[in-house]
């Protein structure tokens, strides 16, 4: 069982993984409040990046509108809480199916009508933008003036209502990230995973080989949108405020996909490594500019853009495949 679960990873890689997990488990005891918010952000993007990676990295369907699923999860759960006092874990049972249904609807339309490649990407943007403008005018969720949750009391952690200290959100997201990793790994090494890779590499060949490409692309969309919606629910209860302009913005969709793209698309460690690199870079630049006494809005993002550019020019496959080869962390290319 254990041998099978760890197949393909070298001993060096396993030791590193164990150290990493242990560090993640004890980190909140040593982190300052600020560092904790950064760590929460890292876990959030590691998780959502993993969810997005199922669609693009595994099944080869480029979604540029994943903010839609985050937003639906966040808005449905928050609105149920605000209007009817329904807690997040019950709200989840409504929010995730709604996001999944939306994802399935988009997938059904796109795959039935053979909308692929760039066209599919732009279709996903269109639906996310449609939702952004729509929620701006939806009175039930307070439109563009924003939906607010009663602010959390940090005195005690109520896990059932998700009211409490950021540390609680840290552990929830850590559990979600680990779980998503395990799910993705088992999916990738299952029948479905191999079918996905076949579709990603050459859809026509996969179809000719008897794979029901429509069905397996739909499975990818359904799993990916459902996982992403869960992150949305956590987002709503962590930040306590939702604005359509922010939640559904195309920049949020791009934020989600940067980590897996930088880390290595289609790899399991790519989304995690990518988000650590990007957040580390972002915070490093912030600290450096602070030390230098440079306080110009936008300068951090310019450097961020330049580094991103250099990474994509130098490492087209992403950082993880290069790192794994260089330090022999995996036995074969995943």
């Amino acid at each position, binding site marked *: 069982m254990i041998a099978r679960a760890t197949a393909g990873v070298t001993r060096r890689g396993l030791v590193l993984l164990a150290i990493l997990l242990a560090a993640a488990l004890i980190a909140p005891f040593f982190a300052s409040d600020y560092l904790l918010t950064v760590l929460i952000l890292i876990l959030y993007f590691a998780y959502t990046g993993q969810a997005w990676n199922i669609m693009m990295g595994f099944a080869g369907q480029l979604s*540029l509108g994943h903010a839609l699923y985050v937003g639906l999860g966040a808005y449905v759960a928050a609105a149920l809480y605000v209007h009817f006092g329904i807690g997040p874990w019950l709200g989840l049972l409504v929010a995730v199916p709604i996001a999944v249904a939306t994802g399935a609807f988009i997938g059904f*339309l796109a795959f039935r009508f053979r909308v692929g490649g760039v066209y599919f990407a*732009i279709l996903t943007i269109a*639906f996310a933008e449609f939702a952004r403008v729509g929620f701006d005018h939806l009175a039930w969720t307070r439109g*563009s003036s924003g939906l607010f949750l009663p602010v959390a009391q940090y005195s005690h952690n109520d896990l059932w209502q998700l009211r409490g200290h950021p540390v609680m959100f840290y552990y929830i997201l850590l559990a979600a990230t680990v779980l998503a990793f395990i799910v993705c790994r088992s999916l990738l090494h299952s029948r479905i995973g191999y079918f996905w890779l076949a579709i990603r590499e050459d859809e026509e060949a996969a179809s000719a080989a008897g794979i029901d490409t429509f069905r397996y692309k739909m499975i990818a969309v359904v799993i990916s949108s459902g996982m992403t919606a869960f992150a949305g629910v956590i987002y709503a209860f962590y930040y306590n405020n939702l604005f359509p302009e922010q939640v559904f913005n195309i*920049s949020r969709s*791009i934020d989600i996909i940067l980590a897996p*793209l930088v880390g290595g698309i289609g790899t399991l460690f790519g989304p995690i490594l990518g988000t650590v690199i990007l957040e580390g870079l972002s915070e490093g630049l912030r600290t450096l500019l602070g030390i230098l006494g440079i306080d110009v809005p936008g300068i951090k993002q310019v450097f961020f853009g*330049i580094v991103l*550019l250099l990474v994509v020019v130098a490492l087209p496959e992403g950082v993880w495949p290069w790192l794994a080869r260089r330090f022999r962390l995996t036995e074969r290319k995943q």
Partner: protein
Amino acid sequence: MPVDIYLNVAVGGILTGLVYGLMALGLSVIFGVVRVVNFAHGEMMTIAMYIAVTLFSAFHLDPLVMLVPIAAVLFVLGYALQAGLINRFVTRPEHSQFLLLVAIAIIITNALLILFGPDSQNVQASYAYDSFQIGPLIVDATKLYAGLTAVAVTAGLFAFFRFTPLGTAIRACADNYTGAMVVGLDVKRLYALTFALGTACVGAAGCMLLLIFDVTPTVGPAYTLLAFVIVITGGLGSMPGALIGGILIGLTEALAGLLFTPSAKSMFAFAILVLVLLFRPQGIMGKRAA
């Protein structure tokens, strides 16, 4: 509401749509030939808009007069980008190209933020409040000038691709990459020229749009999206399609703003996009299996 209000708004929408069409034409030309989706298209337009705003506030130069030099600056920028950076991405997968252009877009937006600050800026031309009475119609002077200039630039571009040897060579690259290489065309240079033409288009469109709308550093993505919507509606890679798509979207936005609320206007543009993608994925003017 009386009919002439609808008519006035519709004409205004069509004139704005002509400028949108020119902006989208840039994207369409780049995709049609180089096969790269320029995800930094709107950001490149904001560069042109800020050059125009600066020239206006410093020297009172009208954006329409400065259109040619500004388009030339964008041409050089586009050429340098394609020759220096994007050419090596032509054969890479879409997501890799996407990441590259997103990085470029982030750099542009924030460099403009550093240089010009977050506040919106605009140009108050001497004719900003003029209008023409044509029969029952009242047309804003700014929109009329912008629309007519867009038509002139577009006509020039059509003529270039149709009648000049260079234009024909670029079309050859788009039709058959290998064939163009075989007959001895310098495809890399032609790609750079095409990308430069595309960015020059969007630069010219930026000068015209500045007469109608304000500019902020963060307005880029909205225009990039708008250009996508137009180009796909009209047919990705089709030049007349971009123009027709532009007019259609301009008209839709104007009428939706009048009938519902201006803030919801982009919903209608996206609804059109979804319908086109589902029922005519090649676009209104597009060829099958492009």
